[in-house]
């Protein structure tokens, strides 16, 4: 572990910005996780970043995430001690000792969660995740596409309510059962999901997404400091495509079954003046529509950014009058296979649409 590079606080600041952009509208803001990390670093904690290939095949890796509605996360603020508690609960339950911790989803606040566990437990973070972005449901991971075991799950609430979901036949069952628990907890819970072996992480993990988020975040932060165009800066480190620029003219939200669903209407500015794009969301941006046609769909990453600052705007925070740029980023290859599309393609979200990549 000594050999793995220590993340600087500056890396973590960049990670927070980049993870929020990769959150594709969801995953919750990484701001509160960042505040916790600043505090932990001030107290002397340090976190090391471990490349996935450094894992032995039989090492155990804890996969962590905070689940629930981002809105709740803005009120019940992340306590840095909760996610490591989910990890130690799993260790107690399974009788194993984790070599490292990794993110379930790099997008949003969950990109920072493993760092809190790593800081408290003094183990490294693996530079990989199972989504490459944020997705709303448990079966929407590369581990599920790879047919890996979905159980067990450790799920904890800050009031000392702790549960293990021991066995489920499918990822969808894990989603249903854990979602019910999460809603009972108040639509927020810290989880340690099915532990992965080093072999599984190397075979099915989406590699180097932590460093990708740091690179994106650093590009935006440097552009902001120099008053350069942050969108251009992102395009200089990621092969993305600007889909639309405009102003938010309507937002409709409804909370159903623990998800935030709805749509946002963007009216074009500059070259897109006169045109309109409607964004459908289920926690994350799922489909961008223009004139009744799908402009982009999952698994392409649809990112809505503040046109000036370059920072991400979430499905929770988007509001009337904001000037936004809709940017598409390419998806991890594992999700563009027929099996991958079953899990995260447009049909997985109830849209009877074929997946046509923006990058095809």
């Amino acid at each position: 572990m000594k050999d793995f590079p220590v993340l600087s606080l500056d890396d973590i600041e960049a990670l927070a910005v980049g993870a929020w952009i990769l959150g594709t509208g969801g995953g919750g803001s990484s701001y509160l996780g960042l505040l916790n990390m600043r505090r932990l670093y001030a107290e002397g904690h340090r976190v090391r970043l471990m490349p996935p290939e450094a894992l032995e095949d039989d090492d155990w890796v804890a996969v962590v995430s905070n689940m629930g509605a981002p809105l709740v996360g803005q009120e019940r603020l992340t306590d840095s001690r909760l996610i490591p508690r989910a990890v130690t609960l799993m260790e107690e339950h399974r009788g194993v000792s984790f070599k490292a911790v990794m993110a379930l989803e790099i997008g949003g606040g969950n990109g920072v969660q493993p760092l809190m566990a790593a800081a408290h437990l003094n183990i490294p973070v693996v530079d990989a995740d199972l989504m490459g972005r944020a997705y709303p449901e448990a079966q929407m991971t590369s581990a599920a596409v790879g047919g890996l075991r979905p159980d067990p799950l450790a799920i904890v609430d800050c009031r000392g309510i702790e549960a293990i979901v021991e066995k489920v036949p499918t990822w969808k069952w894990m989603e249903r059962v854990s979602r019910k628990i999460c809603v009972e907890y108040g639509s927020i819970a810290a989880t340690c999901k099915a532990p992965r072996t080093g072999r599984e992480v190397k075979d099915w993990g989406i590699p180097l997404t932590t460093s990708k988020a740091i690179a994106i975040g650093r590009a935006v932060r440097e552009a902001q400091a120099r008053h350069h165009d942050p969108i251009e800066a992102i395009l200089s480190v990621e092969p993305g495509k600007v889909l639309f620029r405009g102003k938010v003219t309507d937002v409709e939200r409804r909370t159903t079954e623990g998800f935030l669903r709805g749509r946002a209407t963007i009216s074009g500015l500059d070259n897109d003046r006169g045109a309109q794009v409607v964004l459908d969301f289920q926690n994350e941006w799922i489909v961008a529509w223009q004139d009744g046609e799908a402009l982009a769909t999952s698994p392409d990453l649809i990112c809505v950014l503040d046109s000036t600052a370059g920072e991400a705007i979430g499905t929770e925070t988007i509001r009337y009058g904001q000037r936004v740029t809709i940017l598409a980023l390419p998806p991890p290859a594992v999700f563009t296979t027929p099996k991958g599309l079953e899990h995260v393609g447009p049909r997985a979200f109830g849209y009877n649409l074929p997946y046509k990549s923006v990058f095809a």
Partner: protein
Amino acid sequence: MRRIGIDVGGTNTDAVLIEDGQVRGAVKAPTTLDVTSGILDALARLTATDVLGGKTLDAVMIGTTHFINAVVQRRWLTKIGALRIGLPASATLPPFCDWPEDLADVVRGTVAMVEGGHEYDGRAFMPLDTGAVRGAAREMRAQGIRSVAISSIFSPLDPSHEREAAVIVAEEIPDAAITCSSDLGRIGLLERENAALLNAALADLARETITAFERAIASSGISAPLYITQNDGTVVEAAQAMRLPVYSFASGATNSMRGAAYLSGIKDAVVADVGGTTTDVGQIRHGFPREANAVVKVGGVRTLFRMPDLLSVGLGGGSHVSLNPLSVGPLSVGYRLTTDAVAFGGDQLTASDIGIAAGLLEIGDGAKVSHIDEPTCRRVLDHIQSMVEESIDRMKTEAGDVVLLAVGGGAFLIPDDLEGVSQVIRVPHGDCANAVGAAIAQVSGEIDQVFRDMTREDAIATAEHLAAGRAEAAGADRSTLVVIDTEDIPIAYLPGNARRVRVRCVGDVVTGERTSNGA
């Protein structure tokens, strides 16, 4: 309609009289440390112009940067008690956790966190620990705390724990000023709590300042009601502003921009308000300032206020100028211009001295700056021009040239030809645009209510109707009402598609007659 608008800035106190949509008189007086004498001075100068003529006034409307300056400069703030209801959640991120240390050191008194709060669906998160609330209040009293901010998880949806705690705090500290976060805002505990903490820190200053305003007006022999302007360009009665001073934070900038739009009759433009110390650049659309998209930091503290999107650069009439190497601002002589600037016999070279030497401005003693040659003036003014051009460019949201409204006492620093600007417009009384903006401030009506058994569209329409009714009751002209803020949150746990809708609309004050250039 006869109103006096007053803007108490860091450097000048401006006063205007507006009658039937026309500016009848405009004066400027230096802001004084005690505020009151500056206002008295300005009112005396206004009276001296004989425009008041003994006629009755409908209102006096004051806008001030006093409160935001206090936070930015960390002065005149009250040490407060922070009571957060919500344990065991959020414990590693206590109140003040993301404040700049220098500000927290001034404001942070007793910090307490207790069990309680609500869930997103209205259930109690934890029962309110009333014993712990009482214990915290006693500790605050023991430490001499007299202003308390109370925040609670999901209080915008259910403020009952904050209210209950406020009653207990008031029992223990009977003379306490209490700010509940649910009075200030929306979802987002940390930002809402920050707003409550700032508001509590301003409790003494707000009481003293607004009382001073009232005294100044009364001793001028004026018997019109006093209103204080707010961040969004509307006014509230003095008593309300005393309770919630944070809502009047950014009114200075809003007033300048609205005043500039009003005076010029142009409703879409970039506005540069050049004061004594800073230049604020913002954009108006339909006569209102464009709002900042994101979280707004006030004195380094994150808040969720709706504030105009402004770029402040350290350029003003009082800016220090040094010639070798060339620099302008951000330091400024501020209100000491008339003693410290070279043209007034001082020894600090300022942007105003350059303006006087270049013949752009006629104040002070021109002979005292005659040694500054023309190439030197040119060099400084070119530098100022590039500062202005860069600021304008950064505030533009679209390519292409814009109309620039140059207002404020330092507007002489803005040249007529600017890159990216089609036309620079200076208006009569432009140096008092902020006071004009205060005088034309509007009244608002707000509704914040849970609607059931109707569609989202119907719920919003009903809320708009109710908000309009309240604005009218508060004196707004129905034909001028516009909705400036709509927010709706679905509440999943209630049957019948319940949603909480908040609508705010504003309109001009009803007057006998309206003129063509009414805002």
